[in-house]
């Protein structure tokens, strides 16, 4: 090939690398959205997200929709949130199929060239949030469809070794119970309890007391009195606890409250030098690291007149995010090193055959194109808590109170006057975002984390 032809190819290649590398990383683009949400300016957050979404690449569109759904929920536009979540679910499922062109781009440019399919826990949470949104709209039958979808996706994920999600199962049980389908409710509650106590699972948590009561009640409802008694004794629940009796339960109204706490971890980018096995030289690689954003909320209480319940921790999404990323690190590091070595060789060749200037251009292009894939559904909450408040028929002003560990009130939210007849169930959620969320934007990676995950301990 003539030297002139070569130069054209090389410049085009460098330009393509730069073009395909994209602009600002996801975590940088989300800063304006987070900031607006922390200030309580939901419309501003939506504007910032939509501005970014208009320029979003096709590959990032599912993530844009997921984040949009969370903002629309904050805004009270539940129908809009449903549309966004349903479309995101469809696109994420499509994106989960391997793409030849995206694999090629990811191998040569960066990991972010792949379509966003979401982590397994996120793909299941899409159905959880669809179910929750249908419930808040009072569309119980459609929430039931999502409960079945949760079962379906859980089975598919289990085939790939992903543990069961207890909160998703618990929510499915609540839906079945509301429809009077006690047998399905009991099975779902039972699976939830098993998943909470699955040692080694990132979903494991101390089983909520409410879930234990739900399981005993459902077991009684299907006529397994002895089994219900055994469970009640195992959980140390009082024999005269009225919430264990399905008939007494049905004579009350019920307020089912979901507290969504702060925001899920942000994935930021860190650049580090590692020694490549091949050739032994040092190469620069960009990797994502998780920055959890825990909130100061210790207790989320829901109160209706003198009736009160404290929401119990049902899902630790922060832990799911961190664990998932840690599990991905060996693959990410390996692929980043291969990519870095290939890019370095390409620069070397260009320099030799095209001269110093072209070599420099190619070098800039390869460095600029190396970006960590920091995409994650970051507008999910850090954790989810759940309370079920039984109320005698009547009208109640319902209020949410958030407190820190010293009992100081961090926020109060009136959810309005709600009317309950016997057997009525009302579902509501409240997503609170720490006004000081910005403090997490600049957290550097823990050097120990780099030592373990990048340099192999």
């Amino acid at each position, binding site marked *: 090939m003539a030297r002139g032809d070569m130069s054209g*190819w090389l410049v085009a290649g460098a330009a393509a690398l730069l073009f395909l590398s994209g602009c600002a990383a996801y975590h940088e683009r989300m800063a304006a959205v987070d900031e607006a949400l922390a200030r309580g300016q939901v419309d501003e957050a939506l504007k910032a997200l939509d501005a970014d979404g208009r320029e979003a690449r096709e590959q990032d569109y599912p993530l844009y929709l997921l984040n949009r759904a969370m903002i629309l929920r904050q805004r009270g536009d539940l129908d809009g949130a449903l549309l966004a979540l349903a479309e995101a679910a469809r696109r994420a499922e499509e994106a989960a199929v391997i793409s030849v062109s995206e694999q090629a781009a990811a191998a040569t440019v960066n990991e972010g060239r792949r379509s966003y399919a979401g982590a397994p826990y996120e793909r299941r949470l899409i159905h959880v949030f669809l179910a929750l949104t249908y419930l808040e709209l009072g569309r119980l039958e459609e929430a039931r469809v999502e409960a079945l*979808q949760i079962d379906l996706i859980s089975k598919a994920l289990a085939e790939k070794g992903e543990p069961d999600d207890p909160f998703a199962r618990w929510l499915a049980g609540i839906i079945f119970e509301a429809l009077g389908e006690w047998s399905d409710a009991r099975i779902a509650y039972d699976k939830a309890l098993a998943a909470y106590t699955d040692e080694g699972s990132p979903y494991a948590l101390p089983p909520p007391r409410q879930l234990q009561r739900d399981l005993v009640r459902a077991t009684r409802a299907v006529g397994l009195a002895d089994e219900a008694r055994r469970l009640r004794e195992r959980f140390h629940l009082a024999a005269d606890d009225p919430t264990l009796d399905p008939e007494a339960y049905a004579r009350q109204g019920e307020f089912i409250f979901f507290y969504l706490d702060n925001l899920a971890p942000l994935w930021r980018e860190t650049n580090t030098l590692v020694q490549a096995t091949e050739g032994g030289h040092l190469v620069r690689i960009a990797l994502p690291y998780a920055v959890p954003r825990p909130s100061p909320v210790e207790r989320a209480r829901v109160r209706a007149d003198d009736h009160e319940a404290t929401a119990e921790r049902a899902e630790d999404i922060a832990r799911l995010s961190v664990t998932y990323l840690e599990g991905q690190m060996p693959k990410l590091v390996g692929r980043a090193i291969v990519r870095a070595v290939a890019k370095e060789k*390409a620069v070397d060749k260009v320099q030799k055959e095209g001269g110093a200037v072209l070599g420099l251009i190619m070098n800039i292009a390869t460095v600029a194109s190396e970006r960590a894939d920091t995409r994650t559904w970051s507008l999910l909450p850090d954790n989810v808590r759940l309370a079920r408040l039984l109320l005698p028929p009547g009208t109640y002003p319902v209020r949410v109170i958030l407190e820190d560990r010293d009992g100081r009130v961090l926020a109060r939210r009136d959810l309005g006057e709600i009317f309950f007849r016997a057997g009525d169930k009302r579902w509501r959620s409240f997503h609170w975002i720490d006004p000081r969320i910005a403090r997490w934007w600049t957290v550097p990676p823990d050097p120990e984390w780099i030592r373990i995950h990048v340099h192999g301990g």
Partner: protein
Amino acid sequence: MNAIRTLFTLLLAAAVLAACATRVERIGVEEVRDLSGEWNDTDSRLVAEEMVSDVLSRPWLTEFQQRTGRRPAVIVGTIRNLSHEHINVTTFINDIERELINSGKVDFVAAPHERGELRAERKDQELNASEETRKPMGQELGADFMLQGDISTIIDREGKRQVRYYQVDLTLIDLATNRKVWIGQKKIKKYVVGKSVRP
């Protein structure tokens, strides 16, 4: 040189494949085209046609006609979606209503949500329409039978392969006696193999 050529080829392929445009083509409404394997318009139409054809060929119809000397009035009640999918049950109900009405063998009564609007119109006519054209209240045709049912699914899935089994159960109930006069069932089974690779 080979490494660079490979790199550029891959980049070029990525750029070209990423640029595939949307294509739209009009197709006939009767044309069967399964895309995802989910419940679609064809399933809705075929199930409605077959089940209505079945219900109209059963003894309850002639028995009713012999007993009363008129066509039975039917109303469609709740058809529950117990499936894994967000099936548009309204479309299915509309398909059943159309088949029943077009058969000419039964009279059809408006659904509760439609009746509200009709009653409001009659009330309005009492005030505003001329006496000759006014439609009086209390002359509605009461339904003799109600059609109820559900759509349920069983999905067996392994990796990219799945068998989707749909079952539609409909029951026709005599409103006067609560007697079930007809039970119909239609099953659809689909074998779906998902894509294992995208361009």
